[in-house]
């Protein structure tokens, strides 16, 4: 059953051809230009003639593959941990909930480089847990691919949690109450009623989370270092290319953009457009 689809509040007159009020249109267009012009700058400045050679350079594909893989794993990790966390924040009344909610947003406020140092202080070999992890399980995160995933998940998870929590708070609790009256436990209610109800919110949060993970730079280079094939994701490759060769940096940025937009559009068609 998909309660989410039935609840849709009477769709607002989308087809109305009214004049768009100027106080909305002006800032909207300005905002759009502000967001799109830098992209246009990259496209215009790109060295199109030498594009194929630059793309064929060996490091590019490796960095791209690593980026997509780590961002995807990080997003799965965020889903596994973040959705329950969002549920806890939205549905369970516990002391200190406001504080916890504020703490969840810490990675949003923290400069990512500082986030990377903080991760080192916890998971580094001299860190709070790092030494124990290494001695007990032989797990070291810094300078490894799992370290990249950890850095990306740390920075990206708040986006998912906030989106899902918002969806949970906006969802009609009466469906959950009805399920409870009919004898469903809280877990069953969560999986059969709540999750389908907030699916669009989860999808939106996942997209945000993945995009943020894909573009992650500061925490990654600080916590996981920079080594081609192991921890050098596209943003790191772009940064280092920028040191010597602006054109290559632009090409790499465009590749990252093209791939992420393609994947997001494809997923959107797959998941968000239902017959």
């Amino acid at each position, binding site marked *: 059953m998909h309660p989410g689809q039935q609840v849709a509040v009477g769709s607002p007159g989308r087809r109305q051809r009214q*004049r*768009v009020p*100027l106080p909305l*249109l*002006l800032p909207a*267009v*300005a905002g759009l*230009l502000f967001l799109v012009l830098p992209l246009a700058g990259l496209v215009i400045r790109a060295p199109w003639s030498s594009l194929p050679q630059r793309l064929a350079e060996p490091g590019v594909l490796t960095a791209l593959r690593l980026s997509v893989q780590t961002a995807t794993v990080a997003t799965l990790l965020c889903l596994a941990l973040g959705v329950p966390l969002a549920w806890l924040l939205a549905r369970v009344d516990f002391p200190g909930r406001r504080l916890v909610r504020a703490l969840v947003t810490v990675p949003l406020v923290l400069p990512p480089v500082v986030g990377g*140092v903080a991760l*080192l*202080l916890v998971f*580094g*070999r*001299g860190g709070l847990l790092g030494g124990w992890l290494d001695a007990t399980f032989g797990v070291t995160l*810094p*300078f490894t691919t799992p370290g990249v995933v950890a850095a990306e998940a740390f920075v990206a998870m708040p986006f998912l949690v906030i989106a899902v929590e918002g969806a949970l708070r906006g969802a009609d609790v009466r469906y959950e109450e009805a399920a409870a009256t009919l004898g469903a436990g809280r877990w069953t209610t969560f999986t059969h009623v709540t999750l389908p109800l907030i699916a669009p919110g989860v999808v939106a949060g996942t997209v945000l989370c993945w995009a943020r993970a894909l573009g992650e730079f500061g925490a990654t*280079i*600080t916590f*996981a*270092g*920079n*080594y*081609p094939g192991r*921890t*050098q994701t596209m943003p790191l490759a772009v*940064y*280092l*290319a*920028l*040191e*010597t060769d*602006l054109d290559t940096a632009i090409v790499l940025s465009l590749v990252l953009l093209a791939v992420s937009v393609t994947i997001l559009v494809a997923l959107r068609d797959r998941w968000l457009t239902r017959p």
Partner: protein
Amino acid sequence: MRARPLLATLAALALLVPAGCRAAAPGTGPRPAGSGVTGTVTVLAAASLTESFTRLGRDFETAHPGVRVTFNFAGSSALATQINQGAPADVFAAANPATMRTVTDAGNATGPAATFARNQLVIAVPEGNPARVTALADLTRPGVKVALCAEQVPCGAAAQAALGAAGVALTPVTWERDVRAALSKVKLGEVDAALVYRTDAAAATADVDAVEFPESARAVNDYPITVLRDAGNPTGAQAFVAHVLSDAGRRVLSDAGFQAP
């Protein structure tokens, strides 16, 4: 019908944009009536100059009351890119001549750059030297984690030259983006060693020990400085460069571990 508001919007934006641009033009205080130095001097300097230039800036401000020196310390190459893209600044000090050349070749300097200091590499190790590193060759021992600067930044180029001179083939765990990032990995104890400038190790003696190695003499970095063509405060810029090149400036630099050119 719908096109009209859009056009109006674009027209409005076209009016707005130049106004917004003009608002920010740093480095241009009130111009001096005579030849005295006034206003703000904006200096872009290599990350490895952080401590010594901060001190030079304070001395300069003391010598010229009312003048302010603002710094932007970062990797030389990043700074060079910013300058070539029109970043407003008065003085550029790079950590190697090759990076400076990208700015002078683009015609963004007022003339040839002057070399004001030289620097060479040491092996920075966490305090107490847990991996007992005494020479470059020790860095290739299994289990010894090493951070190097990426080859694209000056300290990385110098490290490659030194390793090449020593005939040591080294695989680091990470290629760091600048010398300070490499050093911070040592400070945190996440790597056993990093090749950094002697001056960087000297600025971090609380957490880091420096191991000298003979091959570093084969990879000495010259530090060039220049006044930028688009300097908003050319008088101040020239005075600051002169201060760096003066005997007092040399003393500050040699205190920080730099060698005289």
